């Protein structure tokens, strides 16, 4: 067993942010993807979209300055940057569905090697289903990236040949950013973009349980 260091959550967020180009319009999903906003490299101007009608979303407000009429998709208070804009829901989702959002970064339960995404339901009986904007984003953004842990707590790979959880979208994920490696989903299967230092290719394939083209 070789020795390697997993990417921390912040290192993973920085890895995602590194690939976001200057001038990009980006939607960050609820949860881990929101960390990406803290790591946009200096000198790049990136405009954040929030599904509830915001472009140019800014940082969390200072304590005492919260306005719950200005919230993000996770319903947490945010701010608006100078130049930012508000618009209604049909316009907001037209931005996603019309292919105007360059990149969306989403969390996931499972991603298949060809880019099928499962991130809205674990299909448990009795669970209350909720989908929000996940299907619109996954299918509508020009590029859908997933940011997640590669392995579950039990050590099972969340990158799979076929998703067993209910699908959010088919063949919609372009890249998967994880604590161990960055992978590309293609119609022919997975392709390696990068991996953490010290982790062998064969070892990564063993963890994922799938062939990964170098």
């Amino acid at each position, binding site marked *: 067993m070789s020795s390697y260091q997993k990417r921390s959550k912040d290192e993973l967020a920085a890895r995602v942010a590194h690939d976001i180009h200057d001038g990009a319009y980006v939607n960050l999903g609820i949860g881990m993807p929101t960390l990406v906003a803290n790591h946009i490299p200096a000198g790049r101007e990136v405009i954040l979209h*929030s*599904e*509830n*009608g*915001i472009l140019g979303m800014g940082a969390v407000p200072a304590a005492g300055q*919260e*306005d*719950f*009429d*200005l*919230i993000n998709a*996770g*319903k*947490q*208070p945010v701010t*608006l940057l100078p130049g930012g804009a*508000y*618009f*209604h*829901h*049909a316009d*907001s*989702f*037209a931005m*996603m*569905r019309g292919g105007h959002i360059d990149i969306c970064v989403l969390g996931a339960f499972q991603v298949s090697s060809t880019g099928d995404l499962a991130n809205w*339901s674990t299909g448990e009986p*009795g669970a*209350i*289903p*909720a*989908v*929000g*904007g*996940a*299907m*619109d984003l996954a*299918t*509508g953004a020009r590029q859908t990236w997933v940011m997640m842990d590669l392995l579950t707590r039990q050590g099972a790979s969340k990158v799979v040949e076929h998703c067993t959880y*209910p*699908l*959010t*979208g*088919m063949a919609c994920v372009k890249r998967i950013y994880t604590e161990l490696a960055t992978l590309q989903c293609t119609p022919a299967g997975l392709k390696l973009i990068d991996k953490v230092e010290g982790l062998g290719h064969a070892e990564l394939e063993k963890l994922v349980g799938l062939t990964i083209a170098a």
Partner: protein
Amino acid sequence: MINKIALSVGNALAGVKDGSTVLIGGFGTAGNPTELIDGLIAQGAKDLTVVNNNAGNGETGLAALLKTGRVRKLICSFPRQADSHVFDALYRSGRIELELVPQGNLAERLRAAGAGIGAFFCPTAYGTELARGKETREINGRHCVLEYPIHGDVALVKAERGDRWGNLIYHKSARNFGPVMATAAKHTVATVHEIVELGALDPEAIVTPGIHVSCIVRIERVATQAGGIKVSA
């Protein structure tokens, strides 16, 4: 003379019938027309179909309406939240029907209703459980699902400022579903915090033109409370 200013919430909601489809604006608590929902509870209409992005927060507003048992069906995109216990209990005991709709389809189906569109094809949800049984078609190489409009009998909308013609502007991200729901209902009621003279709203910045609004009611400004998230005590 046109005067869409209603003197009270009760007057504005007097005509709501049993069995109505009620479009209720808001994303979590932002833009949720709490005063109008309270008015609807007092008015007493039952057997309602309610359209909202969520399924109520805490015990007030939409949650309070659901608790009365007068909502037969909820059409929404994201019912499950940290504080949606009223809906959760109704759903688990089979006392409310849920139509789960991807949020973009919810917005676009409302838009389609307001714009007179018969139906539309869209790639969202293709190949997923939420498109099961729906008509599909391949258009320009993309698989699409047929979606129908959602028409409202009544829309309840929270705005910021309005005039006697019913022109409206909104407040920050509390705008959300308000403008599109206003177009999709036969009878749209909006609350505002301020009623201004005709001409006082910048015509370049009016978000909902009065043609989509039946009446407006002025309410006191109360700070919007957090909703949908875990809040430490």
